[in-house]
């Protein structure tokens, strides 16, 4: 009986038992998936001694002590780290959306010599592991005195180094009807006005997707800041968390969990707000990839 119900069910109506079985499986699965996160949230409110002995997801009280202590546990407060992270992420979003949409417009709409070769090169950079460019980039930034500033993390984004977003936008732009461009051209619009007044306004979904993923990835990024930022006053939230782990070892799990929870809170907020765009963005990257 349940044999008729599962995935790719046989044409006719699925049986009740089968549907219930699937729900049970999915609910159990989601609980298992989310338990670690919920447990971390609950533990961030528990007194230090109560964390390990307690598997429950309901804290004894909503005592914000861990949050207050954790926020100021390092020599620089987390307000600073949040600001640093936020500033970098916003600049990266602006850089990516601007530079990648310009490039994608040229690839999708303009016909110029060498376009296909450049497009092939761009696609190749998608595959290139960043380790290959890491060391010469570091040497370059060292020589121009950019180490321990946010410039190495931000400036390249204004030069369209994230090929993934270019690719995403090219796909989208190609789907927009060409008649619009043609009509604008007849009315005397040049490429810039077509890009600015026709293509961009029609492309809000893909621009938003690029902006959201830029923000999420930059917010989460650990490797870049680890290499380029040295002074604690310039740390991003992930770097600060790592410093926190190193300095407290295993003695302050409650505070550590409180700060970890805060570190991923903006990501959850984004997901709540932009769930559709995020999920569509992931699906888009896989189809026609």
């Amino acid at each position, binding site marked *: 009986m349940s*044999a008729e119900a599962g*995935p*790719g*069910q*046989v044409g006719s109506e699925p049986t009740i038992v089968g549907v219930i079985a699937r*729900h049970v499986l*999915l609910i159990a*699965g989601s609980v298992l*998936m989310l338990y*670690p*996160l919920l447990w*971390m949230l609950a533990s961030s409110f528990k007194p230090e001694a109560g964390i*390990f002995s307690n*598997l429950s997801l309901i804290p004894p009280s909503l005592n914000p002590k861990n949050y207050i202590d954790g926020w100021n546990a390092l020599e620089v407060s987390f307000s600073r780290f949040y600001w640093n992270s936020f500033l970098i992420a916003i600049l990266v979003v602006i850089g990516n959306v601007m*530079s990648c949409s310009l*490039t994608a417009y040229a690839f999708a709409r*303009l*016909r*110029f*010599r060498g*376009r296909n070769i450049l497009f092939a090169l*761009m696609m190749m*950079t998608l*595959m*290139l*592991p960043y*380790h*290959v*460019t*890491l*060391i*010469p980039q*570091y*040497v*370059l930034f060292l020589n121009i005195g950019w180490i321990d500033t946010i410039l190495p993390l931000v400036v390249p984004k*204004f*030069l*369209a*180094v994230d090929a993934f977003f*270019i690719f995403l936008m090219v796909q989208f732009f190609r789907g927009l009807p060409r008649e619009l461009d043609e009509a604008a051209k007849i009315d005397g619009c040049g*490429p*810039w006005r077509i890009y600015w007044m026709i293509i961009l306004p029609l492309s809000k979904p893909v621009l938003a997707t690029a902006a959201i993923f830029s923000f999420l990835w930059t917010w*989460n990024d*650990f*490797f870049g800041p680890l290499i380029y930022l040295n002074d604690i006053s310039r740390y991003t939230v*992930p770097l600060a968390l*790592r410093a926190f*782990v*190193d300095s407290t070892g295993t003695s302050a799990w409650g505070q550590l969990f409180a*700060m*970890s929870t805060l*570190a*991923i809170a903006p990501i*959850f907020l984004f997901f709540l707000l932009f769930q559709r765009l995020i*999920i569509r963005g*992931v699906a888009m*990257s*896989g*189809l026609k*990839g």
Partner: protein
Amino acid sequence: MNGVRKAQTSPARSRFRDEDLPGYLFMAPWILGFLLFTLGPTLASLGLAFTKFDLLSPPQWIGVDNFTFMFTQDQRFWNALRVTFVYLLLEVPLKLAFALAIAMAMDKGIRGGDLYRALFYVPSLLGGSVAIAVLWRQLFQGDGVVNQVLLWLFGVQGPSWISNPETSLYTLVILAVWQFGSPMIIFLAGLRQIPAELYEAASIDGATRWKQFWRITLPLLAPVLFFNIVFQTIEAFKAFTPAFIISGGTGGPVDSTLFYTLYLYQEAFAHFRMGYASALAWVLLVIIGVCTTLSFLASKYWVFYEDER
């Protein structure tokens, strides 16, 4: 003006010329970025791979010494390769199996499908974040949550999973498998493109669900599966943050979680052996290139695209 008139006389060729200048102008940021941050550094690191370079004195040409040392004497290099491949060979198939199974369970006409999809995606959203690595460190330590659960369910006292070299790598595999959300969403999108009539026709012909899976679902999903394999494999090669945080940057205990990227990071930024690290980076590039090429070649035998039939 002139251009417009030309375009009318011989459309193809001259229109081409017309858009040369705007084309390059629009492309200018990318071209500059490509030269400065991609092509230039890629070639430079190839050059550095044949040098000894500590950032303080200029690079010193040493021929293929870096590579000879790497392949013949460097135990940690071979160990890092082994760790990375064990991780990858476990993580990618397991992750994709979960992704496909859950995608199929929530495919087609189940109420609340969008909610389930979001819930299962949440862990993947957090990617390689430090916060999650911190959490993992607690979950799998001696008195962590996992052992509490084992004690509660079976009355067994588990070991400290992260400080035991036999098990530490598997905690990272579990972390990666837990984040199966992206391939799951991609599978779901693929599953929704399979026409329901195919299953109807098959069931009228008496095909069991098992058979339908192997004969309809899997073949039609092959392009998506292939994309997921290639993409997840490349991602697995690049994994860094969890191993770094959980092992405190060492890749320990006894190098059991020394991912290739972690080793490269240590050589470059802890020991300042920039030449050697560049050589490591190029070897990684070649390995990823070979793996990708092989999977593309192999895909000719099992992946068929709709328009090819």
